[in-house]
């Protein structure tokens, strides 16, 4: 349970997971933000206006999967670091996850890092495909990693600069 241990449960996660058909089409965002907190930068960050808040600033973000094209601009905009972009159509066996990163060391593109699940457990190794820095993101990096497809809904963090053991 999210409010007991900080790990979003499968039941809590279910409504956030994009539909099978949408996942097949390519990258799509997942805002893992299920609490009414006063925060709205993601709404403004989306150039396609796919994220809305109906009941004002303390509403949860509602993502229109049909409008979202997985551009990843929302990822670094979220002060709660709770938005991820998942691309299940990346390759036959692998998927990509784009996540925010504010730690050291900063991995290089092509580097292999540890991929962690929502509990912080290393579940596999991940290849860093892209490291995006931008003044707009204000020192929050947006990193895209490649991981096995079956772990795309589990991996939500990386640890760089450590030796990664095989799964």
């Amino acid at each position, binding site marked *: 349970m999210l409010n007991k241990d900080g790990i979003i449960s499968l039941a809590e996660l279910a409504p956030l997971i994009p539909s099978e058909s949408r996942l097949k089409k390519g990258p799509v965002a997942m805002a893992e933000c299920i609490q009414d907190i006063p925060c709205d930068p993601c709404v403004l960050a989306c150039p396609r206006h796919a994220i809305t808040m109906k009941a004002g600033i303390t509403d949860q973000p509602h993502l229109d999967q049909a409008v979202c094209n997985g551009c990843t601009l929302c990822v670094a905009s979220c002060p709660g670091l709770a938005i991820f972009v998942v691309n299940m159509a990346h390759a036959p066996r692998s998927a990509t996850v784009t996540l925010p990163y504010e730690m050291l060391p900063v991995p290089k593109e092509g580097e292999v890092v540890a991929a962690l699940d929502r509990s*912080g457990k290393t579940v596999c190794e991940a290849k860093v495909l892209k490291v995006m820095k931008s003044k707009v993101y204000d020192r929050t990096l947006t990193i895209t990693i490649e991981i096995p497809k079956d772990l795309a809904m589990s991996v939500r963090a990386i640890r760089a600069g450590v030796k990664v053991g095989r799964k």
Partner: protein
Amino acid sequence: MSRKSEVFVVGGGPAGLSAAIVAAKLGARVLLVDDNPMLGGQLVKQTHRFFGSSARDAGIRGISIAEKLRMEAQAIKKNLVVQLNTSAVGFYGEGEAGILTPERYEKVTYERVIVGTGAVENSLNFENNDLPGIYGAGAVQTLMNVHGIRPGKRILMVGSGNIGLIVSYQLLQAGVEVVGVVEAMPTIGGYLVHASKIRRLGIPIMTGHTIVSANGDLGVTGATLCQLDEKYQRVPNTEFEIICDCICLAVGLSPLIELFQQASCKMVFVPELGGLVPLQDGNMRTSNPRVYVAGDASGIEEATTAILGGRIAGARAFESLHGPSSDAQKIVDDAAGELKSLRSGSTGNRIRWGRERVTQEIASC
């Protein structure tokens, strides 16, 4: 030596600084004192990006908000005098205060005072809670984010409110291992996105647990924890030790209210706001018409609401001296609107309830 000011502002954090900027820009002669060497209050330690409305500072790091406010204050060429390294040590009679600068003790006379003294960190009772290596969360932030020194190598965080969660994240950024977050309540106190972002980096969050003792002779070498039942009683035989060299206490804040008491402001105890706070009329004016309040001193909340409350206090203090002003009214209307939206929704329940008590009761006082 005596100084004259129309509006005397105590505290250069987000609340006091915003109040001083607004009052000075509207045309009041303002003296601002702060006991730190730098303006910005606790914002100077906040490396994380703030929540809130994109219309005001959301997504911006606390350190950048402090910088923005400092620049705004510096750009004010007249009406605003800032005196750093200076404490307001007492209120005497009507419209008189004593300040202690690094050089001397001085008298300040004022027409209105805005008190934005902020808050002090709470401590917690447990065995050995005075050992070296046990620090308040604010102290950890000061050491780490202002002076660039890690508090230790392995740290235990006590308290899962937003401060406990955010400081745990900042500790990871500074390269410190966080061995866990202990929380007496059955559920996490702070925003769940903050909890998730440290959990996924491997920090366990132990709800329904408490710290029994700090261990060590001359400094912390570990901590003994145990489970709590639903009545917050220790569950026998559940003690276990965690090895750590530091314990960080993030167990809440209490408003700093001595100056209100000296000014005979009516006070009310509101647990939702952190304890004893001055009654105020909804425009930040206390029961002493010379005295206004802003920021955490008016009730523990956070920096964005402190800024907004400060803007209201600054505008209303100006109006009370110079008469109604449409510019001041606009500042108040805008800030009040923003506050309302920030405090809406289920996470704002406690604050709304607390604020209503503080402002309702003044009508009868």
